[in-house]
């Protein structure tokens, strides 16, 4: 298969998953689409190398996240250092959804970007704690801590059952 065909297949096969993941991470579907396009373009720019990685999708996701964070931090400085990153667009345009989903939209706004990123990677992408640690370039203990804090915050909106932390994501020293 030619490089071009392989890239097109990769792009068409992964873009929907990545767009959904990044929309959840950033809370802004337009920004997610924008940064994802840039990340895929950068992947094509280096396709010989990226295509040989164990997980090219993770590479694209990471680059897209960095572009999003970079864009947002610049806008945050311009807007007098807003306390929270990203005001989720999905909250303003909820569309038909269950009460639980609406609660989740609102609850996600309360998380920091890094907590939201860890949660999306762990829950939506199905990565292990170790894999989340590698992708986010932090220690596993930090990932566990972020997941626990994210779940605690979500449980306040969704119910205590959502505070339960899976065994492999329990913070070190926790009773789980």
């Amino acid at each position, binding site marked *: 298969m030619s490089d*071009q065909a392989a*890239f*097109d297949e990769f*792009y*068409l096969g992964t*873009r*929907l998953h990545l*767009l*959904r*993941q990044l*929309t*959840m991470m950033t809370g802004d*579907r*337009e920004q*997610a*689409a924008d940064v*994802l*396009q*840039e*990340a*895929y*373009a*950068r*992947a*094509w*720019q280096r*396709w010989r190398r990226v295509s040989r990685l164990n997980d090219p999708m993770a590479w694209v996701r990471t*680059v897209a996240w*960095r*572009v999003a*964070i*970079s864009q*947002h*931090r*610049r806008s*945050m*400085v311009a807007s007098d*250092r807003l306390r929270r990153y990203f005001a989720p667009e*999905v909250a303003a345009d909820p*569309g038909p*959804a*269950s009460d*639980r*989903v609406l609660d*989740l939209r609102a609850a996600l706004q309360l998380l*920091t970007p*890094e907590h939201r990123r860890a*949660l*999306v990677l762990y*829950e*939506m992408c*199905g990565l292990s704690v170790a894999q989340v640690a590698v992708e*986010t*370039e*932090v220690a596993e203990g*930090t990932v566990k801590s972020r997941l626990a804090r994210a*779940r605690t915050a*979500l449980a306040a909106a*969704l119910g205590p059952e*959502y505070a339960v932390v899976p065994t492999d994501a329990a913070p070190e020293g926790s009773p789980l």
Partner: protein
Amino acid sequence: MNLAELMNELAGDVGTQALPEPDEVRGVGDRLRRRQRNRLAAGAAALVVAAAATAVAVTGGGLRSAPEPVGPAEGWRVVRAVEVPGSGSAIVGDGSLWVVNMAAHRLTDDGSAPAGDLYQLDPESGDIVARIPEGVGGWPAVGGGAVWLMTAAGDLNVLSRVDLATHEVTRIKTTHPPTLPRGVAVVGNTLWVASLDTGELIVMDTDTLDVLRRIQLGSPASNQAPNSVVTDGTSVWVADGDGVVSRFDAATGRETSRLQLPASGVRLTGIDPRGVLYAIASDGRTLLTVTTGAAGAPDEYARTVHVGTGSDTVLAGVAFTDGATWLATSSPDQLLRMDPQSFEITGRTPLEGANHKSNVPVAIAATDDAVWVRVDGQVIEVAP
């Protein structure tokens, strides 16, 4: 319904309508690739005839001192210490705090790259969000989509470009044989490189790294070579070994002002939001300030400030928050707060570590409302 199912349901209405077709994505990628090729070619094109190394003259001057600080900077204290290995420079840019571990200027075991790392921190949370191997160097600048570092490791003497998005590190030789650039300033998509060893100010395109212009300021032997460079986004200032500060219009490259400071061997260290230029004299503890005006107006020497009475006091750097200028010094290890209008030192915060561990500052950076001081093994946040 578990959390994963709930999140997938929430994201379920997101479709790919907003995403372009594959050929459009590849088109953008192809343009990026061409830029990168040009950038690599520019590395070779930038090879210039090397000049003899220069020695920066060190002479004294009739200088005035500011009063010694009388007390702590009101309300400001060490609020956080983040573990960052090693020692090196620090800078705030593109919404992040960038901290270098120089790894003692060593190379990797195979000798192919600098052994240290660049750390990206979120200044709000203090979290380390990325570690970028080989992103090593001093006199950092951020702009044009990259962090720029002057890298001296092993026999490497290059300019390093760390892409903000991909974290890819590109090393660029700016002279032949390679010599260490003494700093860069980014204005829009132009990069102004101070090349002490050739006596040039080299203007490059930040994307392609094409050399757009070379401004010969003098031979290194005559002390007129540029040893540092700063910008306010419109003008570019360089200093030389004779203590002369020259100002250039960034749009035209034309010199618009030239000022002799009352000290030689000064190095420019920053410009505050009010347009006051700061330079550190060769004794390491004397700060000179220059008031700059609108483009075309002459710059004026303003004030000299001695930051320490001891002969071993060394100024690690200058940074600016809203309404204050901050100076970090070693011996004593402290953070000084300076009034940016009167240039009086109005307070100081000791940088003592835990258990009276020495915290020698080596670099300083600031966001609008906090100061970050790089010390061995840590970066310390000082805030109200």
